[in-house]
């Protein structure tokens, strides 16, 4: 069985627990092993490199060394994915940072670990035909806006994944799950990340633009692949309707929750909001009615 070194990241232990449990459930259904990186530490996220890029590469690099005993490292959080992958690039070129790690008992061998996101890992599985016969509960008629955010695809030199302006991998995963991906404009627009804690007004403007684009495209739900994107998109919708011209509320789910639903994974692991589940069932029912009439 193929096994990845799994890097959950800090948010998946707390604010994004359902992203962790649904990710594990999906890979379990696909027959892909996820072995948690032992004693992993924070990747540095979008902030550490702003203080000191070498320190950021060293702390992210620690995880690469720990993962190398298991195999290629897979991260559900877009920010973890980028920090780890960026560190892999920096460590390859910078022997001084490698020395810093070595002095602390962590020897990094350049090229020893490949870093990929869970979207990429799931998409690879799709291309290998690993979904065949496993989509037992298709998400019929559900219109999904796949939201990639920034760091799954950018910067392309480091991410080396999918088309940078119009990525399609998550759309294809949603299609495989029986859903209908919508074409929309804000797939890779930034949600403002942790700046929600710095400049709320600015960040809510960015989030409003993303959500309005999804609503205008006729999406039922937005699929996210980052805990911080998810939090920003989900948090203040009623307030944004009052003050920021948000057209309507729209549910935000992790792509793994949708995939898991189609794969008939354990409901408790998926932890989908009851209202979203009712919407999924309603769309399924509509699809069946159309079939009967037709």
């Amino acid at each position, binding site marked *: 069985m193929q096994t990845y070194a799994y890097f959950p990241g800090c948010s998946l232990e707390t604010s994004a627990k359902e992203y962790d449990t649904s990710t594990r459930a999906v890979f379990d259904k696909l027959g892909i092993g996820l072995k948690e990186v032992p004693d992993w530490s924070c990747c540095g996220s979008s902030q550490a490199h702003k203080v000191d890029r070498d320190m950021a590469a060293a702390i992210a690099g620690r995880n690469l060394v720990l993962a190398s005993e298991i195999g290629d490292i897979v991260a559900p959080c877009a920010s973890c994915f980028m920090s780890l992958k960026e560190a892999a690039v920096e460590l390859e070129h910078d022997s001084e940072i490698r020395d810093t790690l070595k002095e*602390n008992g962590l020897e990094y061998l350049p090229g020893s670990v490949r870093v990929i996101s869970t979207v990429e890992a799931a998409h690879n599985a799709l291309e290998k035909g690993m979904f065949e016969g496993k989509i037992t509960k298709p998400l019929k008629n559900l219109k999904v806006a796949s939201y990639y955010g920034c760091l799954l695809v950018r910067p392309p030199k480091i991410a080396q994944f999918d088309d940078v302006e119009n990525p399609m991998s998550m759309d294809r995963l949603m299609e495989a799950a029986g859903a209908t991906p919508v074409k929309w404009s804000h797939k*890779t627009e*930034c949600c403002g990340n942790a700046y929600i804690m710095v400049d709320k007004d600015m960040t809510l403007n960015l989030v409003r633009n993303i959500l309005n684009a999804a609503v205008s495209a006729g999406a039922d739900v937005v699929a996210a692949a980052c805990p911080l994107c998810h939090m920003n998109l989900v948090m203040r919708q009623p307030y944004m309707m009052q003050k920021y011209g948000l057209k309507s509320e729209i549910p935000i789910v992790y792509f793994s929750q949708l995939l898991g639903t189609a794969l008939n994974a354990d409901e408790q692991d998926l932890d989908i909001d009851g209202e979203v589940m009712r919407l999924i069932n309603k769309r399924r029912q509509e699809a069946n009615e159309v079939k009967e009439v037709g």
Partner: protein
Amino acid sequence: MVLGATARFKSIDVDLKKEIDRLSGQKVDMCYLCGKCTAGCPVAPYQDIPPHIVLRLAQWGSSKVLESKMIWNCVACATCYTRCPNDVDVAKVCEAITQIAKREGIVADPVASALREKFVESVKNNGRVHELPLAMAMKVATKDYLGDLDVGIPMFFQGKFPLFGHQIKDLNNFQKLFNSKKAKKEGDK
């Protein structure tokens, strides 16, 4: 020498430019001001100056750039770098300028500065980020104590904002990574 201390707007301070290039690993002179970074920048409309002007001021070595709010509020989304025809990583340039500005004692956006400091402090303390104290520290920094309680309290009761963070086992060695030789060298300058 105190960087840019005597420089005025439109002054040419070659040393400031060199220092920005060194810290960012970029060549700001590569920029020909096409404005693609500004066109795609999600935060530019909310800042004092747009990213291509940050680059222009950096090319001039103007100390004015150290006072900009834009450099602190770059969200590192990498849209600019992705689209730059000359391969300039503008986010790295902004990041480098904030580091120089901080050394000069100029912090145009103390809240953005607090975010990165508190974040790194949180990581250093436990090996992982503990969201609750970080969020609370940011509430203090923005003086918006009650602003997000409507969101925070339900999350707390869903167990999504635990009181105690996870501490990694090998914390001792982890913390040494913050005091690498290289990091020290830069700090001494």
